[in-house]
């Protein structure tokens, strides 16, 4: 058991969520669920975070933001997609402006479905993520810098990317 599992700091980003899942994520921090008792802190800084919690799906406005947050997080790191929109795009997946779930852009480790995801299942998802986090630490996984595959296709060359 490493210290990683005892002190997971999360960064929460609202991609294009309807705020339903965001409210449930924040509910986890209230006295009723109080995730801080597991050492979980909601930081606002990707450089301090271990777990990237994303709600909502990928669209044109947030592609760069998601990539930027993910790439700024130090290893080992895991991504938790909270809510069905973050998992697959949900009811919005056919929309002209929605690319789909978060895994279209960055590697997702844990999927927490639900509309909106219940606080219990969010906490369960984060606890599952802790296992992944420990495994990544044990195997010394170095996450590759994520780049926007769509941009790469557009340019017809494999260079540049998000930055």
């Amino acid at each position, binding site marked *: 058991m490493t*210290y990683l599992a*005892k002190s997971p700091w999360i960064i929460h980003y609202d991609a294009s969520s309807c705020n339903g899942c965001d409210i449930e994520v924040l509910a986890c921090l209230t006295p009723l669920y109080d995730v*801080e*008792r597991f*050492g979980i802190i909601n*930081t606002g800084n990707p450089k*301090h975070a271990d777990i990237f919690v994303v709600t909502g799906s990928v669209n044109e406005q947030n592609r760069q933001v998601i990539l930027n947050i993910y790439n700024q997080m*130090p*290893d080992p790191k895991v991504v938790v997609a909270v809510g069905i929109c973050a998992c697959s795009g949900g009811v919005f997946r056919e929309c002209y402006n929605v690319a789909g779930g978060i895994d279209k852009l960055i590697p997702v480790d844990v999927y927490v479905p639900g509309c909106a995801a219940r606080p219990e299942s969010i906490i369960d998802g984060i606890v599952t993520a802790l296992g992944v986090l420990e495994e990544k630490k044990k195997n010394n996984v170095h996450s590759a810098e994520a780049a926007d595959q769509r941009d790469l296709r557009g340019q017809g060359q494999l260079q540049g990317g998000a930055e």
Partner: protein
Amino acid sequence: MAVVFVLVAPVIGGLVAGIDRKVTAHMQGRVGPSVLQPFYDVGKLFEKENAVVNETQIFYVICYVIFMAFTGALFFAGGDLLLVIFALTLSQVFLALGAFAAYSPYSHVGAERELLQIMAYEPMVILTAVGMFVATGSFNVADIWVTSVPVVLVIPGIFLGFVYILTIKLRKSPFDISTSHHAHQEIVKGVTTEYSGPSLGLIEITHWYETVLLLGFLWLFFGWNPLLAVAAIIVLYLLEILIDNINARLRWQFAVKSAWLVALIVGIINLAVLYFLSGGAP
């Protein structure tokens, strides 16, 4: 004593931070993390990748730790109070320099606010040293430590002023303007914005050193009665936690103005009264 401080202070400081978080949680009607949580946090940070924008940041953060440990060691070895204060300021300046070294607007805002904090509390810290000298006739911590003079009764104004800036020094609301220990979700994580992993862990450890040093300062006010000193430190720290929890963050202008005003009023008046009572002889 100096070696003991360097080795033991992080343990005590970490426990104080843990108790702080537990008490805070209970005040907010939560269960709160384990008392050992700060140690888990730092342990975790040392397991992470050390991603920095500028390698110089690491140098500055190491200087920050070393000078803070040096300050505390000097204090607990019974050194000169003025030298302690200068070393403490130097240490703080290294933290601000580290934040300036990264080319990031958020980090720079944090560094500027850190400098403003230093500006806010520094006059009162120096007045504290002067007050200690007036009360006990010595700048040496070793002499003040064993004095039979009830220091807090001789310089009550300076004591109040010191408690006021203690809130700034411990980075408690309403004066947590450069960075905060709370789980505020904020873009500006102040001076620590551009630090991650082991460097951030070192900053945490330095905070623990600093906490113990500040509690040592409080001890000096009650040095003639150790039992009272321990009780006073506990009560004052709980008071700081209460202040932290019932206040929102205020603007930096208020921090600087009010800290200087307090230093001017209680500090200078206290010294002036002592001067006139002693008939002009210090």
